Structure formats: C-alpha cells, structure tokens
C-alpha cells in the first residue's frame, strides 16, 4: 500500500507541462512513442499505416491508426485502445504481432493512455486507407500462439517506480522502458523474438542487439562499446540533435531523431540520460585510448595495407588522419562505440549505404555520409572497415568480404531525400 502511494506521488511529478490540454499531452506522448515512424510511410498521410516491417514470421504492414471508423481506429473505445496498446489485442480480438512494442507500452500509465486516446481520436485527421494484408507463410499464420506468447512475455499493465531511485530516474525509466520502447532495438531478443528483458532490473536490458541489418549499440555503461564515456549532457544532446562529440545517429535511430526525441522537453531528456547513465556495464571494458601511430603513418604516406590506402583516398579528407573528424557534425571513427562494437553490421551498413539526412525538428543536418556500395567492392569495404576497426587504438576485429556481401544484398542505399513524417 505504501508503495502504491509513493508510485502515485512519483507519477504525479511527471506531468510534462502543467496545465497542458489533454490532447497536447497526447501529442507529446505520441512523439515520445514515435508512433508516426512505424504507422506512416514517407510521402503518405500521418498514421495511416502501410509501412513494411520484416519479422521472423514474415512481412508485416503497420496499420491505420487514424480515427477513420472503417479502416482506422475510429470505432475504438478507450478500453479497446488501451487493450491494443498495453496488451496487444485489437478491437476484434485478434492478437497483434509484437512488432508493435506493446510489451513496452504495457508500462504506460492509464492516464497517459487516456491522453493518447484523446489525441488520436480528436487531433489526428481521419484517413480512409485500408490496411494491407501481412505476408506470412500459412504455417506461421495462426495467431493463437501469440496468446501464449503474450502470457509469457508481456508484463501486466502499469509502471512500478523504483522507490530507491529519485523521481528523475523513474521518469527516465518510464520513458525508456515504456513509450520510448528503446529496448525494441537496443535489447537482445530471445528465441521467440521476445526482448530478453523489458526493464533495468535485467543486465541484458539495452545491452545492444542486431536488428534489421543494424547493430543497435549498447546503451549501458560499457566503456568502449556503450555509453560509459558519455556524460549525461552528451546523451541528452544526442537525443535532441542526433549528434554529439562521440557519434551521430544512424539507422532507425534516424527515425527517432526525425520524429521523436528532439520534441521532448529538456527535463525529459535529462531524465532519460540520468536513467541510461545508471545502467551498469555488462562487460569490464577498458576505455578507448588513442594510439597516435596510425595518424602519423597516414600523414607520412605510409599506407602498407589496402585498407589504409582506401582510407586515405575515400575517408581521410573528412574523417581526418587521426579519425577524429569534425564532431558534432561529422562523427569521429576513433573511439566511436559503433566502430568498436563486436558486431560490425552498423559500420558496414553505413559505408555501404551512407546515411539519411537527420532532421531534428524539421531542420536537416548539414553533413551526411555518402554511400560507397557503388564505388567499392565487398573486398574493399571489408578492408577499409577492418582498417578503421583497428586504427587509432580501436580494438575491434576484422570483417570479411562475406559479411559485406550479405549486407549488400539485404540492405538498401540511403539517399539525400529529406524525409520528414508529419504528425499533422
């Protein structure tokens, strides 16, 4: 009982802007949840669905969540809405695939659900657009196993604050574990495609994961491959702009920057930073220490490996001989957690495909990575990526042309087209 009262007190302290209208709150929450990223397609109407998502069972298409009564969720009651978001059960009783992060959204408070409902029902324009059928092989099609899945993997609704932590930490935990559904990408998944853990109590939570040809790095305090060397201010800066002195957002984090975290209040960003900074390292890594011999060799023209020579001709004029580049605009390669990760998927992916413009609050960033899939062969990309992973004191392993070849097949190039998904 005592516990519950404390929880209520903590949650009361969370309201983001005192006196905001419910649907303004709802919009803010929809931002925090980045609903638009999955429930829209570039150039399409907001929240009308249709985005293709790969999953282990087949190709799924996200659904129309505009208030259109026939094709959207216009006929949902608050209870229906709550059930779908926190339990993964649609109004007609069918079970949603867990590409919809309802195991995370289960953490939402009832009042946030109500605000979201208000927003979706009253502020989002209804769009009549029928949902696309999922492409799932028949033997995987029955949805009843999801019921079992849900029982096993979906926690019961609501957020239980940790009374040993302060309000800021709990607010951060609520946002990260709940609406932010950061674990959907950053937490490793188990054999049933479930996130191995859904909150800070488990050390696998946000410990890094490979999803959709990207490696979403660990958000724990690992010194080399996590956020161990980032200050809380730097974490918040990253979420606000997509950039800081360590790294630049890429992959699906681009969607998060484009639609979500820059819209959060500074106090919410600080809360997220405080929460993330508290997650202990999973491995005792030594922090990255610069080795200046790489830069000296490159500057004096000593490029004894093919990878080094490629670096000089293709990378060095921007990322510089010391790999320090020009942060926060152009990310460093020396000591960058993504470069140091055991899993090289993201680094290979970026070299192959380049990066999409990050658009923080409507303003695209000034610099972007070009793609090299057309200019460099698998062998060359493997050579240059291996070089980068072993230069300037970086101590990650070499990569093989086969790894590059596989990613070349399964990924698409980026482009300079500025994609902003509009919520209005």
């Amino acid at each position, binding site marked *: 009982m005592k516990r519950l009262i404390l929880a209520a007190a903590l949650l009361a302290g969370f309201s983001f802007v005192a006196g905001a209208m419910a649907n303004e709150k709802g919009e803010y929450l929809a931002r925090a949840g980045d609903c638009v990223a999955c429930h829209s397609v570039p150039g399409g109407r907001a929240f009308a669905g249709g985005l293709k998502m790969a999953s282990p069972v087949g190709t799924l298409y996200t659904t129309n969540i505009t208030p259109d009564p026939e094709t959207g969720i216009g006929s949902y009651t608050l209870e229906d809405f709550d059930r779908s978001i926190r339990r993964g059960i649609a109004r007609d009783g069918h079970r949603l695939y867990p590409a919809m992060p309802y195991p995370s959204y289960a953490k939402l408070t009832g009042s946030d659900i109500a605000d979201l409902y208000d927003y979706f029902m009253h502020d989002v324009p209804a769009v009549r657009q029928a949902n696309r059928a999922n492409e799932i092989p028949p033997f995987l099609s029955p949805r009843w196993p999801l019921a079992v899945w849900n029982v096993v993997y979906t926690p019961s609704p609501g957020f239980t604050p940790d009374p040993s932590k302060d309000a800021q930490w709990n607010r951060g935990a609520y946002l990260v574990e709940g609406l932010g559904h950061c674990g959907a990408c950053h937490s490793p998944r188990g054999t049933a495609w479930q996130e191995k853990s859904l909150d800070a109590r488990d050390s696998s939570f946000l410990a890094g994961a490979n999803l959709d040809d990207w490696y979403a790095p660990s958000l724990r305090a690992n010194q080399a491959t996590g956020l161990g060397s980032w200050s809380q201010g730097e974490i918040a800066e990253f979420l606000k702009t997509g950039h800081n002195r360590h790294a630049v957002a890429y992959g699906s984090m681009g969607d998060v920057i484009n639609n979500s975290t820059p819209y959060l209040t500074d106090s919410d960003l600080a809360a997220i930073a405080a929460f993330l900074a508290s997650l202990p390292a999973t491995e005792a890594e030594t922090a990255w220490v610069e080795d200046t011999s790489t830069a000296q060799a490159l500057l004096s023209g000593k490029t004894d490996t093919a990878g080094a020579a490629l670096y000089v001709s293709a990378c060095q004029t921007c990322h510089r001989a010391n790999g320090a580049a020009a942060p926060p605009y152009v990310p460093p390669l020396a000591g960058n957690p993504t470069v140091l990760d055991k899993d090289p998927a993201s680094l290979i992916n970026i070299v192959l495909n380049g990066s999409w413009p990050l658009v923080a609050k409507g303003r695209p960033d000034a610099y972007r990575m*070009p793609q090299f899939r057309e200019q460099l062969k698998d062998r060359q990309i493997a050579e240059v990526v291996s070089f980068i992973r072993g230069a300037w004191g970086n101590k990650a392993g070499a990569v093989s042309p086969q790894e590059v070849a596989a990613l070349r097949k399964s990924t698409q190039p980026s482009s300079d087209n500025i994609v902003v998904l509009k919520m209005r």
Partner: protein
Amino acid sequence: MLARRNFLKASLAAGGGLLLTATIKAPAKAASLGKAGRDAATLNAYVRIAPDGLVTITAKNPEIGQGVKIMLPMLIAEELDVSWDRVQIDQADLDSRYPAQTAGGSTATPVNWLPMRRVGAAGRHMMIAAAAAEWGVPVSECETLTGLVLHNPSGRSLGYGALATKAAAQPVPDLNTLKLKDPKNFRIIGQPTRNIEVPRIVTGQPMFGIDVSVPGMLYAVFQKCDVHGGKLVSSNVDVIRALPGVRAAFEVKGGNDLRGLLDGVAVVADSWWQANRARQQLDIVWDEGDITGQSTADFAATASRLASGKPAMALRRDGDVNAGLAKAKTVVEAAYSYPFLSHINLEPQNCTAHVQDGKVEIWAPTQNPAPGSKLVSNTLGIPESAIKVHMVRAGGGFGRRLSNDYMVEAAWISKVVGAPVKLLWTREDDMRHDFYRPAGFHFFKAGLDGNGKLIAFADHFVTFSQNGEVAASAEMTAAEFPARLVEHLDYGMSMIPLRAPTGPLRAPRSNGLGFAFQSFLDELAHKAGVDPLQFALGLLGEPRLLPDPPGPRAGPGFHTGRMRGVIELAAEKSGWGKKSLPKGTGMGLAYYYSHLGYFAEVVQATVNAAGEITVDKIWVAGDIGSQIINPLNAENQAQGAALDGIGTALGHGLHLQGGKIVQGNFDTVLPLRMRQSPPVEVHFRVTDFPPTGLGEPALPPALPALANAIFAATGKRIRSLPIKDLDLSASA
C-alpha cells in the same frame, strides 16, 4: 567557296591602330552538323593592332574547356604573320556583332578554318599596302616576317605597330581572292600552343561563372519539382522567410516549356549556404502530373514489348532483310541498351543576374548565350536590346550549357528581389534537372553467310518521344553504320513517351549508337570466327566515298578509306593480334565516324576473378583532316574524350523512378577517377581533307572498344551499360 555576303571592315581603332571587323557567312556545307552547326554558320572576327604592335583578338565563342579561345586566334595570327607572344586574347560578351556565339557539335574548326585565316591574311595585306605606300615601292617587293613588313631590295622594315593607323586607311581586300599561306610555312598553326589561361587557373584566379561577384549581390537557390515540369500547389514559404540570413523566399509560377522557367520556390539569402540550408526546410506540395510508365523498369519492359512487334516507323530499307536472314548460315540476335545520362559538368549550373530599371545584365557560363538572352527577354518581357549577357568561362560544357534554364531562373529571381543575384545549383539539382542523354534500346538481328560475311542486318531501335515527336538527341539516321555496306538492311524505330527532358551530350546520338552497333559488330565478328580487325576491313571494303542519304542531315558522306586508315593505324600502334596477352586480359577494337572525324580505338583491359576491371591502355587513332591546329590541345581533347567514353561506360547511368531521377551525386554516378584512368596514346593520320574538330568524335569508339576488350578478356558480352551494374566475376 565563301558565299557573297562576306563583309570585312577596316577602321581606326580607339587610341590609334587598325581595327578589323569581319562578318562572314560560312559555306553551307558546314551546316550539316545539326542545329548548333547551322547557327554556327555565321562567323565573325574582331582584330585590333595597336600602335605598339600588340595584337588583340577577340575570342567570340564561349570557352568550355575545348580550347577554342586559343584556336581561333591562332588561325588569324598565323595569316596575319605576327608573333604569338604579341597576341592578346579577349573574351567577347554576347554581342550582336558576333551572331554565332555557341559551342557545340565540334564545329569550330571546320567552320572557322578558312574564314579566320582569311581575316588574318587581309590584315597582313593591308600592312604591306601601307608600308609600300610609305616607301613608294610596289607591293610585290614587300613581304612580312612576324610583325614586320620588309622591303628586301632596300633592306628597310617597318613594324605593324607603326603601320597600324595607316593600314586602317587602306582599301579592304576581297576576302575570297586573298592568297593564304602554304601550310608548310605555318609558324603558329601546327605548333603545340599552351592555353594562355593556365597560369590564372593554377593560381585560383576567379574566372568561372561561379566566381562572379557584383556589388550588393545576394545568393539564390531554386527548388523545382523533381518530376520534370511538375506544378507547384503550395509551400511553407512563410516559414522559410523567417530563417537565418534569408532575404526573400517566394513561389514562382513558370510555364510548360522544360527549357524555360518552371514552377518552383526561390530562396534568396545573404550567403549561399544560408539560402541552401533554408531551402532544405522547404515543404512543398507538388502536382506531379501523370507519371505512369516513367520509370527505368517500365521503360525496359515497354521496349521489350515494342520489340516483339513491328517498328512504328521505318528508317531505312535496303534489299530484303528477311530474305537475307533466311539465306544466312548463322543468324545472331541480341538486345543492347544504354541508360539516361547527365552531363555532370564539374561546375554546377549557375548564373548571376541583375535586373534593374528595365535592364538586365547577366553573367553566365553558357555555351549558347543568344537563345538565353531571347528566353530572358520573352519570360521577363524585357526587350533584348536591354539585356547584356557576359559569357564567363564554364567549368565544363558537354552540351549541358546549350540550354539556358539557369539563366532565366537567375534573371527572374533578380527581378523579384530587385537586387543582383547569384543563383547556384547544388550537384543534386544539376543531376536531377538536366537535359538527359536519352536512353536507348536496340534489338538487333543479323545474318552471316558461310564465309562469315555480313549479308543481313536489322535494328529495331526503341527510343523516346516527347510530345509526340522524337525526343531531342534521341534519333537515329538512315546513314547509321553499317548502312550502305550490307546488302539486306532494315532500320526501324519505335518510341516510348518520356516526361524528362533530353538534349545533346558530347557526341550526341553517337555516344549511345556507337556502343550498341560497334559491340554488336564485334559480336558478329566472333560469331563469324573472323578477327574483329579483319571483319571491320572486310565490311568497309575498298576505299571509297559513300554519299549520305539526301535530307536535312546529309553531310559530306562516309569515306571507307579514311576509316580503314584509322583502324589500321590503331591496330598497328596497339600491336593488335601480335601480342600474347595473359589470361583475363583482352583487347577490343571499335571505330566510329561522327562530327566529321574518323576514329578507331583499341582498349586493353584486364578482368580479375572477382570481376574487377582494370583498363590497361587505350590507343586512339584519328583522321581529322590535313592539319592539327594545336597538337598540344588536340592530344588533351582526344585523351579526354576517350577517357570520358571509358568513364561513361563504366560508371555513368541514371535511373528514373516515378518520373524522378534517383541519383544525385558522385557516389551513385561514378565519373572516371585517377585509379581507373589508363595511359592514352593518341595518333593522328594526316589526310588531304579539310581540318575538322575533335572535342567529340574521339569519344564514341571508347565505349564499345572497352566492352569488346572485356569480352576478349572474359567471354562475357556487355550488352547494357553502365558496366558497374554488371557482375563480371568468374562465378557469375
């Protein structure tokens, strides 16, 4: 022979000295070079000899890297008989006294060769006349020596400078009866002559369009619809106006002419960076119009569908191709295609304009200023007499700057903001708003007899139309090689409607046709079991002139002997058939006649097991007539053209998707780079024909020569471009 309308005027130059102005109608023959050539048929010259002997020659044509700014003055200076280091060259503005200020079609040499020399000779003649009068001796006793008139009997001499003012009073000689120098006495023509601009280029002096700066100038960018000709519906331009540095942001309602002012949003700011950053926040709703079928994949599918039927239009029919094919021992069928291309001048399109008090001043890196001035006049409603266009050095032309869309955009924006404006496109603008080299599809069928002789040849050419007409630079003529050399021949054409605008790119038409035809002919040689060199010589037969089919494009015809000559020269220099090459290495031969020039090229290339290509070397053999005017530049142009062909074959190619160009920068369109660039040996065969240009004709054979070399190296036939999109690995 020159026509009668030639007009040379001598007058006193301001500040003393002789001023020669000539208006010359060039022979009609030169008009066989397509549109640019027809315009280029009126020439002009403007020569000033100052009292100090300094000769100033105004270069009237736009300089785009082809070296014309040096070449035309060389012709005048030669016959004027002055020392080249006493010659100074001025760049003309667009000026009604110079009616043909255009760069295109490799026309400058054939069109100017005699007329410019005659202007120089007239000046020399007047110098002699002035000196003879001064000394009271007969003209016949005088001669000239690099800027001096000599009277050998008395040992007297006078410099041109001293004579210049008096020469201005001499009667003007008849241009057509002037005696020109015997080429063996040339002192300037034929000498390797350095480009006088290089010292300024290598020290970074401002000289290109992008470098223009005028007081009070603002910077502009212009966002158009990426579906060409799409209409603007609405935009967030008021949001843009409030961004840092922005002075103006406004919507532009343009017309329907893809070469004119189109719908878009202009952003004008204190700096270009600010303008472009603000523009990136634009949110525009476009009406793209009908884009059905406007994708690369759709085009390919449509082409195959069309190819299964009869051509919509016959281009040429000799004999009976079906009978020929029926008689043939071997029938070979193959489909070839090449992609849309952008010009990718390294200097993106730009223009500076100032519209003020009903007058317009324009600084433009253009290949074709006169139509630009007309376009600005029509669009802004300002008479041409109130428009001044300065031609500024262009960072590459390749045909792109024959269109003046950027010029009218700059003028319009300047008019709206009431200030001088420099409009600069991004690379992405440049690639996505070009006048593309049209893609093309060729469905070939050919028959070889028992001796490997080509007896039947058919091409169903699927190309593009715009507004019902064949799109610009998308046509093929009835003279296309090997027409006139095969007994049974049939060329037909069908068209696919296209939204994107097209236009000439260096060696227009030939740059695609050459690849398709010369690759297929190589394929036939191999099928016939005949060495490609022998196959080519056999096809060409005895040296003779094959007249062009009559029609507006009829030129001087095709000379089989000149083609044989360059093929044999290329084969000899490259050691064709005489070298034993390692496995994975092969040589390819191709030859092509375009822009009055005959070129044959041999490429040696190596392909490793992973499919990586190394171009080892290129041998270029050309016949551009009796005289190479500036060998130093000729070599540079020929090397550049051949390498351009290699780069195009390897790495250029655009895709359309929903009417939009997908590629935007040099990470997806890959121009040749140093690492890929082989040595290029250039050899000229000097023949008795009038000199012609070479900015273009050295390009077309390079693509098929490379493709044929790759076949020789790997056994893999390249039937589509660019090669970067093909898998040539051993396992493929």
